[in-house]
Each structure stands twice: as C-alpha cells, then as structure tokens.
C-alpha cells in the first residue's frame, strides 16, 4: 500500500517536474563546479534578488494558466502599479499605504481581466493583451514618462527594502535575503490554497472542464475571475519586490516580464491547456531561469545566452511532458 501510494505520487507528479528538479540541481552544481566565485553567498543572494518579481508574477499567473487562460498583462501591471504608487508617494501618501495601494491596483487590474474573460467571454489572450497595453500607456500618462524613484535604503522610508533584503549584498549577515522567506511562505500558502481549499479545487476543475464544473453547480464565473485577481494581486506583490530591489521604475518598461514568468510556469509543469499545475513546479521553473541568468556570465557568456538556453529548457521540459502524457493515455 505504502509502496503503491508512493508510486502514484511519482506518477502524478509527472516526469516533467522530476526533470525540472534535477535540472535545477544540475545547473547549480554545474556553475558551482566551473566557477569558484559563483559559490558565494553573494551570488546566491543575487540569484534570489533577480527571482523575486518573476517568482511572484509566476505564482499568480499559474492560477490563470491552470484555468486554461493566460495573463499577458502582469509585467506591465507590475510597472504601472509601482508608477502609480510612486506618484502617490510623491503626493505625500505614507509609504506603507503606498505599498498597499500597489497591491490593490494589481488586484484591480486582475479583476478587470477576470471579468472580461469570465463574464464577457473575451479570449484571455486578447483581454489581457488589451490591459497590457492599457497599463503600459497608463503608467506613462500618470508619470508624464518620467521615471519614478522610491526612497533609497538610507532614506527615512527605506525600511521597505528590508522586506526583501536586510542590507546591501555583502554576506548573509548584512544582506540577509528575507525576500526568499516571503516568497517561500507565499508559495506554500498558495500551494495549499490551490490543492486543499474549495476555490483552489474549483480553479483546477474549471481548467480541466469548465462546462462540467458549471454543471456541478459551481459558480465558474466567480472562480475564474478569482484566478485573474490572484494573478493581478501577485503582480502587485511583484511590484513591491521590484522596487525594493531596483528602486527605480521606468515607464514603458516591463515588457517581456510576463513571458519570463510564463516560461517559469511552463518549465514547472503547468499545462497551458489548463487543468494541471503546481506552485512548487513554478518556483522550480523560476529558479532554473534565474540561476541560468546569474550563472552564465560566470563562465564568460553574455546574458543573451540565457535566452538562448532557456528556450531549449522550455522546449525540453514541455516535450518530456507531452511524451509522458501520450504514454500514460495509451494505457
């Protein structure tokens, strides 16, 4: 019995996720072997730093992808909400409230996406493409194309930076990556939410078969909207991690962030067709990408190679999944 249930865990977990974990470990060890300076706590903190905003976006968008939809707007929502937050801050709003506003703005855009997709039946790709452009333009409008700079660590309001790192990168003591703890806590919380609560179950169910879920008496409009609200809210969280790490936000940027997040989700084994997905996989996928991004320069490769190699990783990961599924459907 124990043996059997273990087998099932592996079967359900899927080859793809197993490969993803192995790849993560392999890539880290690879860089660590080939570069002594990669094996420092500094580098590890750099990897974390560059993972936060992608990681939060990826956790959020996992829910949307599980419903069979897509959210292209998360990157620009990140930028837009931090720009609006910056303008509010300049107008004198206390920073703590600004941060809350940023999350609410993210949630609001998520809600708009959700309503467009679930209620008005717009294709997710189109609806979120629209909000992507709207948020991108809106960010430029509210700031008059000026970039926004949040308070630096040394400033009076610099405390928010310690949410993600306690000090400058130096070592684990001075610059402890508190953000990693936040990321992990939220990831675990959302994983439990997805697998152990009704809303999570309904999101999985409607991604698998929306009509069947509806006929089971589940309010699919509500839960599908919720998936987008989660995605938007996490884009807001991502915005906070972004300003905490990078301080400055430039209008018009943020394009392509969403693709990094979606790539992480896909590498982590969530199917773009909907119905299957896991937060753990997403986190693994995001870290695979950021280790590549940080690690490649250490072996003397320009960052463009990260794109090049990530492309292969995505194709490989999804191919493994497709093969695996074809095999299991035969039996």
């Amino acid at each position, binding site marked *: 019995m124990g043996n059997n249930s273990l087998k099932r865990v592996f079967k359900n977990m899927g080859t793809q996720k197993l490969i993803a974990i192995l790849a993560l470990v392999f890539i880290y060890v690879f860089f660590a072997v080939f570069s*002594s300076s990669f*094996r*420092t706590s500094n580098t590890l903190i750099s990897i974390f*730093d560059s993972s936060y905003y992608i990681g939060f976006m990826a956790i959020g968008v996992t829910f949307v992808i599980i419903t069979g939809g897509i959210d292209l707007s998360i990157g620009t929502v990140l930028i837009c909400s931090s720009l609006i937050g910056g303008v509010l801050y300049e107008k004198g709003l206390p920073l703590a409230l600004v941060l809350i506003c940023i999350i609410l703005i993210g949630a609001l855009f998520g809600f708009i996406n959700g309503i467009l997709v679930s209620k008005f039946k717009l294709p997710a790709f189109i609806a979120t493409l629209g909000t992507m452009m709207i948020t991108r333009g809106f960010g430029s409008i509210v700031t008059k194309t000026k970039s926004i700079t949040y308070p630096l660590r040394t400033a009076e309001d610099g405390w928010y*930076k310690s949410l993600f790192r306690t000090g400058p990168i130096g070592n684990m003591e001075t610059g402890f990556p508190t953000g990693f703890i936040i990321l992990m806590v939220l990831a675990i919380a959302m*994983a439990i939410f997805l697998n152990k609560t009704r809303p999570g179950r309904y999101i999985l169910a409607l991604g698998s078969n929306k009509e069947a879920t509806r006929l089971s008496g589940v309010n699919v409009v509500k839960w599908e909207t919720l998936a987008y609200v989660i995605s938007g809210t996490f884009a807001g969280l991502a915005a906070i991690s972004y300003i905490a790490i990078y301080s*400055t936000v430039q209008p*018009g940027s943020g394009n392509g962030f969403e693709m990094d997040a979606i790539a992480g989700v896909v590498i982590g084994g969530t199917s773009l067709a909907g119905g299957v997905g896991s937060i753990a996989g997403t986190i693994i996928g995001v870290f695979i990408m950021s280790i590549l991004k940080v690690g490649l320069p*250490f*072996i003397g490769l320009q960052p463009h190679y990260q794109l090049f190699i990530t492309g292969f990783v995505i194709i490989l990961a999804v191919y493994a999944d497709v093969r695996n599924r074809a095999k299991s459907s035969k039996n």
Partner: protein
Amino acid sequence: MKLKKVVAMGIATVLVAGMMLTGCGKKEEVTPENTENTGTETTTETDTGNSENLTVEIIAKGFQHDFWQAVLKGTEKAAEEFGVTTNFVGPANESAIAEQVEQLNNAINKGPSAIALAALDTSAAVDAISNAQSKGIPIVGFDSGVPGAPEGSVVANAATDNYKAGELAAEKMYEAIKDKVTDPAETVRIGVVAQEANSDSITKRTAGFVEKMSSLIGEDKSTVEGHDKYNRKVDGAKVVIEVRIPSEVSDNAGKTEALTLLNKADLVGIYGSNEFASKCIINANEGMNKLGTDKVIAIGFDSGALQIDAIKSGVFYGSITQDPISIGYNAVKLAVAAAKGEAVTDVDTGCQFYNAENIENEDIAPLLYE
C-alpha cells in the same frame, strides 16, 4: 502531501547545495582566480609589470548598439596597452534597469580589480555600489557615469561634458537659423527630440541645448514648452522651443514624436539629443523631405550609419559627436590606475561638431562609428 514533498525536495536541495558551496567558496573571494573567464574579454601577455593580473569589469548601458561597440573598441585598445583583462557587458536596452543591476551584482561577485560603470539608474544600483565599496573594489564612471552616486563610491569619471555638448549644438544651429529666429513676424518653432527624461547625460544635452538656445535668442523672446522638466513659459514670445519625449524607447514611439514636430509648419530647426533621437528624426523625415540646408535645419548627436548618411546627403545640417573610443579607453585607463591605488581625476573625453565638410577629416573620422 505531494506538494510539500516537492517544495522540500527542490528548494532544500538548492539551498543546502548553495550554503555548502558558499562555505568553501568564501576564501577565494578576496583573491579571485579568473581562470573561468572566456567571454568578450581581452588578455594580452605583454610584460607591463604589476598590472598583469588586473581584471576590469565594464558595465555599459547597452551592448549591441554601434555606440557601445565603439566604446568596446576603446576598452579593448586600453586592455591591450595596459595588459589587463576586461569583460564588457550591457543590458539589452536602456529601459532594462533590472537587467543592468543584475549584471553589476554579477560583476562584483566575480571580485574584479576595478569596475567601470555607466549606470542606467543610480538609485537602482546604490546597494550594489556600496557592496563594491565595502569589498574595496573601486568604481569609475564612464559615458553618463554614475550621477548622484554616494560620496566617494565613484573615484572618477571618463565622460563627455554633456551640457557643453548640448550648448555646442545650440550654437551651431543658431548660426544657421539666426535670420529666422531674430524677431520673426510669425511664430517660429525649434523642435527637440529627447529619448527620455531620466538619464543624466540626455537631460544635460537637452538642457544645454535648450538653455543656450534661449539665451542666444533672448530669454524674453523665446518660450520653452512640451515637457515639465524644461518648460519656461514666456507670454508673447515668438520663438517656441518644443521638447518632445516618446512614451517609451522604441523606434516607433520616437518616430511619432519627430513626425509631430515635422508636421508643424512653423518649424525651423530640430535637434535630437542622442543617436536614438536623431535616428527617429531621420526616419520621420523619410517621405516628408522637410529637412535640408534651405529647409528645416536638423542637428543630431553621436553618429551611426544612418546619421552619417543623412549628413553626407545634406539632410542633416551636422551632428555633435562624442568620442566613444576615448570614453572606453579612458574608462579602462582610470580603472587600472584606481586599482593600483593611484590618484585619479575626472577626464573630459571631449566632443566635436561635424558636418558634410569635415566628416572625412583625420580628427573626426576615427570618432564616428557606423
């Protein structure tokens, strides 16, 4: 159940592996071995004594752009001359603040002898800069440098005096449009296209031009509009200086702004404060043909194949060029000196006005890049 297992397995493995390796890697931080470096770096075996093992990490604001390739050439030249190892990186575009910060962090983690930095945004890089400071890695600025960096963190800059460069552009344009802007009967307009309103270098070039032009025409006879940063409203002034900034750094958005200016009938002159802005003006003029010696006078900045062609064919009146090779060369030179602990001071890498007549001259031609 399954989930916890996966989270635990994946993340714990990485963390444990990371922490363990961190332990053994620490010792080497101080004297890094650079045996693993193989990228775009240049090493020479020339015997120049104590600089043999020095490494300089160069973080530019771009990489694939012609300008940065010319800077790269300068750094390579210096690397060869001083016998040091250099590694040149830059983000994909000038909006990619996060990417550049990551590159800077990486550079610091590699533990080089010195770092040369052209920051896209200083506040974003401030943590990393203080990290370098605490590790004793000197930073020199180049090109736009690291404006507003914490006191003492950037030891010297190798840069064009951008405000001066902007002034030079204004002087040259004023020469050409003097008649049209001296007490005109109808409103006349001078357009300015600036890539963005954040970076210090572009702001200074724009401000240098706008302010110099205003004072040449007369403060009370000209009004500046278009962007909060430069606006100076003078009622009844007949000369309008209009600054336009695209909503994003893309060829299309920039071209739209240039088109808006070119479509105004009262336009007499137009200035693009960097290569991107100049390119947008040239692209917008395509098919409109409003630019030329007897038409609207256009002055650009930097070079590049498109701009050089526009100048040779008379579409552009002329352009201001910095000296990218000198910037790259001096950046490495300063970095090497700083790494050795020598005293360093800022270097003005200079700028020149060039047009169809002097473009082939010996003192101009090497500064231009295709």
